[in-house]
């Protein structure tokens, strides 16, 4: 399959540039956080991320080259393969830190749950877009919800509540643009408000309640979850307007902020580059979101538009939640920041997703 000249003319270079810029900023932050003060060199985590980058770029190119419609047509197979991988993980996965999330592939490991969003996005876009169904009947919503629930449950059991949660906005994004009656949205909101005290009382485990309580008052648990939240705020807050400078961060570099290269990578960026760094990166992320929504608008069919919205909803939700959390403004959840956090699978899956978004935009005039 060759990219024809007229296709390549419609590649969205500004979006690629923004995505790559964020990826490189993330890489630089990991470089700083992983810095080994004893040997004065970047740590192993940095190099692992560097090695993941060409793989991720390849994934982007592949997802760009294959016509998204042929992919969508095979979305059920993709979806089933994903479920199979998740089931495999459940029984044969590699355990790290008490969670069974990874498939070992010789020298490196793969985290299938990171690809769940793409699989779900494809199958939902196909289900609501191609069949001309709209999300206006309970049955249709129900089928979509089941498609969401299966992988979400498998990931939740790993356990990985954070990643499982990122599937939910994928579903909501699609049904929203697929015409979900706003009445229903209003009713759902009311139900949530009414039900939340009940859920609080009966639906949550003690430790989950503790997390929420700790978020509202971190000083209640200054050593545990509250500690992360306090340190995250200290990290961001001490950055000031201009930041402490590259490699000059004390919170991430000296280990006062836990998982600084992963869930809290943005805190370190805010520490070292200050509010100006935040301004630039938030601008880039917003640009990526709006530019992707442009792609949805320009898409020549509903499948393309829904696919873009599905991908960008999961992405946007995760970005907003992680950045909010990184400033200590949301409860601590194991959620990474797409494009910037450490994690090869996440980077590959995210760039593959942008490959699909570029794909939709590029093929807007083809038949």
């Amino acid at each position, binding site marked *: 399959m060759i990219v024809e000249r007229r296709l390549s003319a419609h590649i969205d270079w500004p979006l690629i540039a923004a995505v790559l810029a964020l990826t490189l900023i993330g890489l630089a932050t990991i470089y700083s956080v992983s810095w080994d*003060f004893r040997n004065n060199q970047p740590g192993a985590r940095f190099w692992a991320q560097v090695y993941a980058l060409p793989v991720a770029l390849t994934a982007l190119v592949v997802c760009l080259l294959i016509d998204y419609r042929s992919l969508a047509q095979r979305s059920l197979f993709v979806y089933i393969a994903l479920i199979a991988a998740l089931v495999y993980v459940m029984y044969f996965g590699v355990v790290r830190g008490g969670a069974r999330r990874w498939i070992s592939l010789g020298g490196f490991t793969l985290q299938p749950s990171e690809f769940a969003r793409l699989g779900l996005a494809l199958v939902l876009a196909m289900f609501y877009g191609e069949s*001309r169904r*709209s999300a206006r009947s309970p049955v249709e919503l129900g089928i979509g919800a089941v498609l969401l629930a299966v992988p979400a449950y498998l990931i939740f059991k790993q356990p990985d509540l954070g990643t499982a949660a990122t599937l939910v906005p994928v579903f909501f*994004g699609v049904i*929203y*643009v697929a*015409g979900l009656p706003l009445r229903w949205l209003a009713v759902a909101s009311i139900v949530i408000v009414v039900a939340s005290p009940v859920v609080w009382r009966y639906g949550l485990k003690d430790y989950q309640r503790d997390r929420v309580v700790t978020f509202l008052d971190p000083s209640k648990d200054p050593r545990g979850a509250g500690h992360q939240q306090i340190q995250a*705020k*200290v*990290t*961001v*807050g*001490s*950055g*000031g*307007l201009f930041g402490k400078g590259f490699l000059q961060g*004390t*919170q991430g*570099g*000296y*280990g*006062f902020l836990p998982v600084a290269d992963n869930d809290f990578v943005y805190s370190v960026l*805010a*520490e070292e580059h*200050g*509010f100006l760094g*935040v*301004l630039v990166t*938030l601008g880039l*992320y*917003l640009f990526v*979101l*709006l530019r992707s*929504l442009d792609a*949805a*608008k320009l898409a020549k069919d*509903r499948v393309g*538009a829904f696919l873009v*919205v599905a991908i960008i909803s999961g992405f*946007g939700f995760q970005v*907003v939640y992680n*950045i*909010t959390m990184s*400033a*200590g*403004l949301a409860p601590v959840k194991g959620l990474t920041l797409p494009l910037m956090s450490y994690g090869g699978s996440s980077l590959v899956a995210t760039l593959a997703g942008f490959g699909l978004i570029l794909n939709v935009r590029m093929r807007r005039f083809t038949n």
Partner: protein
Amino acid sequence: MLSPGAHEHRVGLQNRLTSLRVVASVVFGALLVSFWLVQVVQNARYEEMADSNYLRTIPLPAPRGLVFDRESRVLVENRDSFSINLVRERSANLDRTIATLARVVGMDEAAIREIVARHKREPVFRPIPIVEHATEAQWAAVRARKFDLPEVVVQTVPTRTYLPGFAAHLFGYVGEIQDSQLDRPENSGIEAGAIVGQTGLERTYNTSLMGEDGHRNVVVNSVGREIGEPLGTTPPVEGKRVQLTIDYDLQRALEAAFKQSGFAGAGVFLDPTTGEILAATSLPAFDPNDFAVGIDPAKWADLNRDPLKPLENRLIRGLYSPGSTFKIMMAIAGLGEGVITPDTTVNCPGGGTFYNRFYQCHKKGGHGVVDLRHAIEQSCNTYFYTLGSKMDIDTIHRYGRMLGLVGKTGIDLPGENNSFVASREWKMRTTGQPWYPGETISVAIGQGPVDVTTISLATMIATVANGGTLITPHVLRAVDEDGRGWKLAPTPAPKSKLLIKPEHLQAVRDGLWLAVNSGIGTATRLRIDGRDVVGKTGTAQVISLEGARAARGKTDLDLRDNGWLIFFAPRDNPQIAGVVFGEHAEHGYSTAPIVKHVLETFFAKREGKPLPVLGAKPVPVTTIPGTTEPVRRDR
């Protein structure tokens, strides 16, 4: 391709996409405002919290000031004590390291394992102290295997070092400051954990001796490991050097002779015109070196349990009856008040009857007719009973104060007790009874309600030696305030000046001279040819005669009498004065060899002659032929 209704769908989709754009923009705007608030508005607060995370101040303890004798010889210094530490993170095989280390330092492997287990939870880079205050052999053995044992590091700790068996009670000891001490005004600015003087001059001059701790600012990571180079170092300032009035040679002579005597007790030699203490001791004593390395609890408990009370400074804290040494004070008082003249005589038939009670003299046959000089020479009780019967207790109390026997001497050592001479006011206050003149008879020979410290008797004899000035005994001579040399400390002002007529003074001095030099005096053993040593013995009951009879064979307590010697030399223009107190020495003269050895050392030094060597311990004798020295007691 487009079916009916597709257009509406298309429009609906476009609207909803637009609404998503709006939502995204609003959310990002809100995020930006939040970061502004956290990063810019609240920046100062979080910056401070971040700084306190990674900046640590490591104290660098200042060595205490050195202590010198009056000729600038070092008495107290600081040496490095070595502790042997294990750094687990450097060990490839901890079991093998422990086995090797056990062999090298001669410790039980299990013991080391236990120490390591106790520190299990600490970060692996933190050194675990295996041997604190290692011996030189252990330290050398570890140094020799430096390359086999890179995980074993030797750290040095500055430790106070004292001469062994030398003026322990004078120096006192140092120890970690206690919570109760932190609140005291003189300890302001001292932080918990600091080493301060706990007793002795280490405590009195703690402020000068302590110096200023330095500190090193370092960057640490979240587990406390130091990262990179220190940000800045303030070096510690060593404590000020202090010079004492103590003469090393005299102190050495005093300690050696006192130890040879085997007595517990106290002794002090001072310059009678200035109050400078040349030598002073209290025995038995502790070893201040034990405290310098942190005394172990068993040793501390032993010191506290010891019936001889080695922690008690007998020189300034022990209160005893002065016995016959009090007669000197009585003589001065009697002469000063005109009750007697030097030529007043009393007939001693072996005692006398006062207020219908017979008071015995210690010489059964009596001294016959004696004047003041000979009454002092032979310590005639009857003479002083007679004098006492003519004097008021309050007058005696007043003279006691003028001669330093009431209250504190003001010596620059902590914990001095008040010396005491009875008075009407005291009797009324404590018993509600008036003073009966009969009670004065016992007081006149230093028995009954009279209790004095050794140092206070020293001020009394110094007053006689210098002609009436009540000096303040002290051990501080000079301080090196700024590292540029000794700055003499001002001599403490005399506490009072008693006008004693020269002929009165001469009579007392003559009596004291006769006691040593006439051949029949009570202090004959103090005689040094050509030195004109003058002095007076004293013996004080630990228990009354009746009590002793009752207690005989029924108690383990040592009930033998205490012995005193007060002295100065030479008689005219005295240069040295002092007191030696022997607990249960039975006689005042028992401690004479101690005094003689120190005085001989003093004179030899002054004349540049070789210092006398302490001879073998003399065979104890109870009487000396040709004298009427009492076998039991002076009275």
